[in-house]
């Protein structure tokens, strides 16, 4: 058993690489899906029925499909549209599509529950349109939605493991490689699990900090 862990330790550089890929995919995916999700939330809240209904259909569709299936659809589907991405980018595109839907749903839920008071005051003070959204609505929504967005971030981190199946060199893929090369399954995958645990705990700590910020701004 000690020998197993020694082998994994000898390959820690590879694991670190995998970890960086996982974190990079998750962080980029998070940023992009928060940006796009905010836009989609605007469409969900649109007064025009056709707009909000089609946005809702988009969200519902993605919430029913497993992430891996979506990753396959992107991986095999984009080339048939003439778009050729490498595996890493396909993986990122899948993450962003998938989580844009979730983020939009989270943000919309909070937005709907936002007190009308502050928004009405902003309107009376001459805020409207995008400025009202970006300066008054969105900051309040983000503060309240932070815990849910943190949970979603953890979900993204875990979903990246699916991308090992399309050979994206993230943490699980690297652990898989080490295990098949040296046959050290227990040590290799346990190391991966502990690393996932570490970054997820980091995210949770971040969420905790934001929650404290949010509490005094309510």
């Amino acid at each position: 058993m000690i020998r197993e862990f020694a082998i994994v330790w000898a390959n820690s550089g590879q694991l670190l690489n995998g970890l960086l890929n996982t974190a990079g995919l998750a962080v980029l995916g998070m940023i992009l899906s928060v940006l796009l999700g905010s836009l989609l939330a605007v469409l969900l809240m649109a007064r025009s029925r056709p707009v909000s209904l089609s946005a809702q259909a988009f969200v519902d569709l993605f919430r029913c499909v497993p992430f891996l299936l979506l990753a396959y659809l992107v991986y095999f589907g984009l080339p048939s549209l003439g778009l050729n991405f490498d595996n890493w980018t396909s993986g990122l595109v899948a993450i962003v599509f998938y989580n844009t839907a979730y983020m939009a749903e989270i943000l919309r839920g909070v937005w709907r529950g936002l007190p009308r008071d502050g928004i009405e005051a902003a309107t009376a003070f001459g805020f409207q349109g995008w400025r009202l959204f970006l300066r008054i609505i969105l900051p309040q929504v983000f503060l309240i939605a932070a815990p849910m967005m943190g949970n979603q971030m953890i979900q993204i981190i875990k979903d990246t493991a699916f991308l090992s199946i399309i050979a994206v060199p993230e943490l699980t893929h690297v652990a898989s490689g080490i295990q098949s090369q040296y046959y050290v399954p227990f040590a290799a995958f346990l190391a991966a699990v502990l690393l996932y645990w570490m970054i997820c705990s980091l995210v949770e700590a971040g969420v905790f900090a934001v929650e404290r910020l949010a509490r005094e701004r309510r």
Partner: protein
Amino acid sequence: MPDTSMPPAVAPPVLEIRGLTKSFGTNIVLDGVSMQVGKGQTVCLLGPSGSGKSTLLRCVNWLEPPDQGRILLSGKLMGFRDGGVVPMNGMELARARSRIGMVFQHFNLWPHLTVLQNLIEAPIHVQGRQRDEVIGEAEVLLDRVGLADKKNAFPAHLSGGQKQRVGIARALAMRPELLLFDEPTSALDPELVGEVVAVMKILAEEGSTMLVVTHEMGFAREAADEVVLLDLGRVVEIARPTEFFTKPKTERARQFLQRYVHA
């Protein structure tokens, strides 16, 4: 004897409302309201609950677009452009609204911003004024409402009276031509009413132009230049406070005073 044949060349009133009508469904909330607020004047809008006072204020800055009638701000038509035929678009409405300051019954501060940020948010991002200048002015305003030491606090940490004083300072930071107050003390604990009324009295004395919906009869009696009584969406009486409170002209005004002053 002054010459009465020539109309005096005075500036138009800051706010002029002509024949304002507003219904929600079949409920006629405002029924042909006409009134004015002259420059530097404080006008108190009184009336029983549900008489349409809030709706009137909200029509003035087009939070509720009126059904009929005209709102003129310093002679300029609100809500329409090009001689009153084309409705203003969102941008134009926003610009027009930024000339009016509003103080709300429930303060409606922005909870994610500090006190100082609440004051400077609209002047910088709506009026596009210089940041340093706005901050300097905001600090002076906070000092005037007695909250200089709270500038970095979040609204959640303030008492009701403090929140409302921030609300007033926030409205003043817009350098508004007209200040609208919608029952600014009704949501306050009785012992906190005084600090807010005191600030409002100073504003009135200093010549701010104010339209104030209130049930604080003391304020109306002492600070108002004119009192307007609204009932069932109609103006029942317009009078100087001394006359209104001592010898009201209408039966309806007498009943109102019975309930709200002598009760």
